[in-house]
Each structure stands twice: as C-alpha cells, then as structure tokens.
C-alpha cells in the first residue's frame, strides 16, 4: 500500500516537476516566483498531493501521517519546488478552520484555499518574537465588527496574501495569554498596509503588516473572545514533523552538491576538506533519522514535549554546518554576489545566500535558545526560572 503510493508519487513527480525550474527561479523576481508557485500548486492540487492531510471528503484528503511522509520524501527526492506561498493556507489556515472554525467559516474559506487563496500569518510583532503572550495589537469590539490597530511582522509573503490569520488582544486582564483572540482577516480591508522587509540576502520574503482601524466582521472571529491562544497552539502544531522530514530529506539529497562543488573547484582531494565533509555526513543522516523518528512518534502517539525541539535544534545546527562547509569549499568565489534561487531547499549551492538563510531556522519559529530552554526544562526536568523573577533596574 505505502510502496504503491510511493511509486505513484514518484512517477507523477517525474512527469510533472517543471523541468529546469531551478534555473528559471534563479535571479527571477518575486512576481515570477509567485506565478510559478501558482502553477505548481494547481498541479499538486489536481493530483491530490497538496492536501493529503485534509479529511477524506476533500480531494486528495484522508491520508495517514505515514502516507503524508512518503509524499514529502518523494517531493524532496525529486527536488521539486517547495510550496512556500501556500504553506500557511494549506496547513495553518486549513487546520484552524477544520479544528476550530465554524461550519459557516469552513464553508466560506476552505474551498477558496483549493482555488489558490493565499494566506499569511499575523502572529509575530516587533516586540513579541518568541514571547507571543506579550503581543500588543488590539482588537476592540464595536457592534458587529472588531476594530484592529497594531503592527505585525515576519509574515511570510504577506504582500501576496488574500487573507491573514491574525492574533490580537481583546483584553488586558488576567494572564497575558488570556486576552488574545483569533481572527480571519481579509488583507484587502481598509487600513491594512503591507511593507516587505528587506532581508540581508536582498530578498523580501517576509513583510510587516500595519493595521490602522481595520474592521473585521464578528463572524470572522475563530472561537470565542480570549481563546486565541489555544486556537493558535492547535494551528502551530498542524505541520509539525512533516516540514522537518521534508527539509532533512532535502538536505540529505543535497550532500551530493558538496561533492560536485569540490570536484568542480579542484579541491575534491583536499584531505582537510574531505574530513570536514566526512564529519558532516553522519550529522545530516542523523537529522533525517531524528525527523523520521519524530514523525513515527507522532503517528504512534508517543510524542513527548521537547521531541520537536530536539529535531528543530539539531536540524538548525546541522544546516549551519552544511552551509558553512559549502562556503569553505567554494572559497573566494563563494563570496561573489550571485542571483539566488527561489523556492528551493536551504542548500541551493549559492552558499553565501544559503548561509544567511540558515538563520531562518535558528531564529524563526522558536529560536535555538528557546528550543534549548524547552529541552532543559520540559525533557530534562531542570527547574524553570521562577515566573516572578522580574528585572528591576539597579537590583
């Protein structure tokens, strides 16, 4: 059964991954990238490979986690483009709607996702990175609408989004988490403005969202007022594991790139570089094994808190080693500013860019430091810093 699926997916990918997409996506602008993502998305939707995690009544839906894993592995193996533009829609938005949305909301929004609606995430704020509970964007109820004021940041490709998963504060009473409410915001609403963030790679994959008296109808609130925190937690876990299976498999398939570059630059016989390469290989394989093992645990229900942190931390560290070696073997030429490739894995062979992008994994989605805290406190049972340790100047 699972081998059959693998064969099916593999053969479909062989016939459908756009030939030369890496070349086409190298040095292209973001609009061209968005167009290519749309094409690829519709192909995947049509084949049923975009929504394996959706319930059975949806096209392509009803796949087990094990089957989803096979699809991700094959996508990585085939070096297909990553579906960056639709990630939030297919996972976070869809899972939020299915798990916490009303029947009406499901009816109104889920079909749109399959038709290509782009969603973005409005969680992070300039002063609430890993500390989500401290977010400050406010939502004030006025009759049938909420009026939103505030600012969001680090929203992936928000400039192309149709809708936004928005967290905002409806109350300041009680625990900081308690006053947060979850909304589905139309990005075309009056008062929404988006400013792409210029990244150190020259790309602007992320954006800031400014919210100035934006009105959201009450029917676009998910769950009750003050339940946003719980809804967000359910949402955040939706793709946990799968992404890291895909990323680690892509890293494994990219090991060959190191060999290629070493050969091309005539340093394949340098024993010092070779030894560094040899040290990296088991680390990459271990990252794959960790991601696989984690998903197995999720499937079998044995997951414990901290498991996901270990996978993410180890992946981020290994990726850093990987791209560092890439830079080392590519020497001075590797420092040359070259057009980068959009939609690929983290190891495009443009090592300077890859190195910079590797920080996406050590900083975003819970930094390495946050993961270490979780591992130490939740897995190793080392004591948490007491909540009432508050800093006072001059203490």
């Amino acid at each position: 059964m699972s081998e059959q699926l693998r064969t099916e997916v593999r053969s479909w990918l062989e016939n459908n991954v756009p030939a030369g997409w890496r070349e086409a996506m190298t040095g292209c602008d973001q609009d061209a990238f968005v167009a290519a993502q749309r094409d690829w998305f519709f192909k995947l939707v049509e084949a049923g490979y975009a929504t394996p995690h959706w319930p059975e009544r949806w096209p392509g839906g009803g796949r087990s986690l094990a089957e989803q894993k096979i699809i991700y592995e094959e996508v990585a193996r085939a070096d297909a483009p990553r579906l960056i533009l639709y990630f939030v829609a297919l996972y976070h938005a869809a899972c939020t709607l299915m798990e916490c949305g009303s029947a009406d909301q499901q009816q109104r929004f889920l079909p749109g996702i399959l038709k290509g609606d782009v969603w973005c995430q409005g969680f992070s704020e300039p002063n609430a990175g890993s500390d989500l509970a401290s977010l400050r964007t406010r939502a004030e109820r006025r009759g049938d609408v909420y009026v939103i004021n505030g600012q969001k940041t680090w929203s992936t490709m928000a400039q192309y989004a149709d809708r936004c998963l928005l967290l905002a504060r409806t109350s300041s009473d009680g625990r900081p988490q308690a006053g947060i409410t979850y909304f589905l915001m139309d990005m075309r609403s009056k008062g929404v403005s988006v400013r792409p963030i210029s990244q150190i790679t020259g790309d602007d994959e992320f954006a800031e969202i400014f919210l100035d008296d934006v009105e959201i109808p009450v029917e676009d609130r998910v769950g009750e007022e003050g339940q946003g925190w719980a809804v967000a937690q359910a949402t955040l876990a939706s793709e946990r594991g799968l992404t890291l299976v895909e990323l680690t498999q892509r890293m494994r398939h990219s090991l060959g790139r190191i060999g290629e570059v070493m050969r091309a630059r005539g340093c394949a016989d340098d024993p010092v570089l070779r030894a560094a390469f040899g040290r990296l290989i088991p680390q990459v394989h271990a990252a794959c094994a960790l991601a696989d093992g984690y998903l197995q645990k999720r499937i079998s229900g044995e997951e414990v808190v901290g498991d996901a942190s270990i996978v993410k931390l180890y992946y981020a560290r290994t990726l850093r080693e990987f791209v560092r070696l890439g830079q080392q073997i590519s020497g001075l030429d590797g420092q040359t500013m070259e057009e980068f490739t959009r939609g690929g894995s983290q190891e495009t062979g443009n090592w300077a860019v890859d190195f910079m992008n590797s920080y996406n994994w050590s900083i975003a989605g819970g930094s390495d430091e946050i993961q270490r805290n979780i591992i130490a406190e939740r897995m190793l049972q080392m004591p948490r810093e007491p909540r009432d340790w508050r800093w006072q100047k001059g203490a």
Partner: protein
Amino acid sequence: MSELLTELTDSTRSVLDSLGPGTAEETIWTQVVDLGWLLAGVPESLDGLGLGPAAVCVIQQELGRSLSAARYPAATLVIDALVAAGESPLLERLPLLLTEALATAPLVPPDIEISDDGRLSGTVRAVWSVDRASDILVWTNSDVLLVPTSAGALKARPTWDETRRLFDITFTDVNIDSGWRLAQGAAAETLVCRIETLRDFLLAADAIGGATAALESTVNYLTERKQFGRPLALFQALKHRCADLKAHIAAAEALFADTLNQAESGFGQPQAALLAREAKLLATAAYTEAAEEAVQLHGGIGMTAEHPCHLYLKRAQLNEHLGRRRVSDELELATCQFS
C-alpha cells in the same frame, strides 16, 4: 523500538541496576550467561532467541549505561561469526561457547598476516579478557580464524578505562590448524565485513548508553547542588549545555536506530559496514562530549576517584580509539559520497 526490545531494555536494566555499579567482571559475566543474553542474537534453529543484532545492541547499550565490565561485545562477535559462517565443524562448539568456555575478539582490526605456507604472525590489540578465554577470533582480508589463545603470547594493555580489561596477543609463526578456519576468500571478506559491522554497532550502543547515563548523572547533580542560594540547574548557561548534549545524544541514538534498521537485512555487505561506522562515529563523539561536560559540570567532585563521573570519561575516550580511527573514518565516509 519494538515492544520486545523495549521489554529487553527494561529487564536488562533492572538486572544491572540490582547488581549495582562496579560489579566485578566475573559476577556480571555469570549473569550474562545465566540470563541467556548471549543467546539473544542466535537463531532459533540453533536454540537461540533469534532476536537479531538489534537485541544484542540493546543489551550492550544497557551494559554501557551501567559501565559494565562484561566482555559481552567480544563474546558476541565470536558467536555471531560462528553462526554466520554456517555449517562447519566449529559450529559444534557453539553450545559450549554460549555457556562455559569463553571466546573473545579484538575491538580494533587485527594487525596480523598469514604466510603462503599458512603461518600466522602479528599482534592482535585490544582484546577483552583474553586471559580468561580459550579462543580468540582473528581475521585478515582473506581469512577468519578462531585461534586457541594458548598459541599466542599475552601482554596486558591496562587502559585508563578500568572497566574493560584489554590485552594484546602476539602470534609468531604459528602453524594454522585447518580446524581453526571459519571462512576464507570471498566468504571471509563477507564475514569480516559482518564482524566489523557488528563491532561498530556494539561500540555505538555502548556509547549511547554511557552518554545517556553521563548526562542523567550531570542533570541530577546540577539539580541537587546549590550555589549562591539556588540549584545549579537553574543557571541558564548550564541548562543550555545540557540541552545541547541531550540533542546530540538523541541524534546519535536516532542515527543508530536508523542505520541498524537499514543494515539488518545486509550484515556482511560493505554498505552495512559503512552505516555502522557512521553510527559509531556520531555515538562515540556524543559520548566523549557528554563525558567531558559531565566532569566539568560536576566541578571538583568530578575530579575525585570516588565519584563515578570519571569512569564515563575514560570509557568514552577509549571508545573513540576502538573500532577504527576517527580521522580515517571521516575520510572514508566522504569518499563514499564521491563514488
């Protein structure tokens, strides 16, 4: 891990816990034999438990965890080689090897030669408890032999890791009895590959067990020990270092499980040996790191002989030099990516 293996882990651990740390070699060895741990990997057709290399490794992981003096890896290598060699007069000795008589094997590749007229010369280093063994497994690229230890000259190799009694055994122009031969030619090549694969997996298992215990001991110490009015475990810098260790050990463990799983169908093939080497490389590195950090984070107490902390360090450092040398491992792993 299958339910069976989880049970095996639990039962092995409970036996070892009840024996306590620092149990004498012969005491623990009696248990190993009596409890049938040597049978774990032997096929049911030969009256074994038929649980395969994974079970053997599970047992070694627990032995490693408890810093055990049991020469289980050495004995297991011989038993596995005997079984894998298939029908041979030597196979008749299996029941005895599983119960009374002892055979051992080196933990680094033997440095021996066989002359054209069938004479064995050279030194086999790092053989565990060979002074108590009747026979020793040795190999070249083209021969695998089970040689009576009386044919060689023993020399103790006392290492800082006192949990494992190692020896060198030197053979000088020893006439090889044809009855000693387990395999020759292509069959020997496959068998050597199998032996080295199992050895490296066993070393990896030992390392993972030891690393896990070293980290546990460290976390416990940090939690109990107070300084400046609070437990050391509350200091974030120390927490983060423990978290990193945990991640490295988990990665080594995941790689170990994955490579063993992949290799199980093809023990004896070069690909399996390579997988084992990867597992061993990462596991021994994690062990060394965990043990080194354990001593540092235990502070002064970690430098005293009365605290067991140093036993991890010494065992971990020795492990790095068993199997093959690390540097050459790394180079060979890279080479495979190029071919």
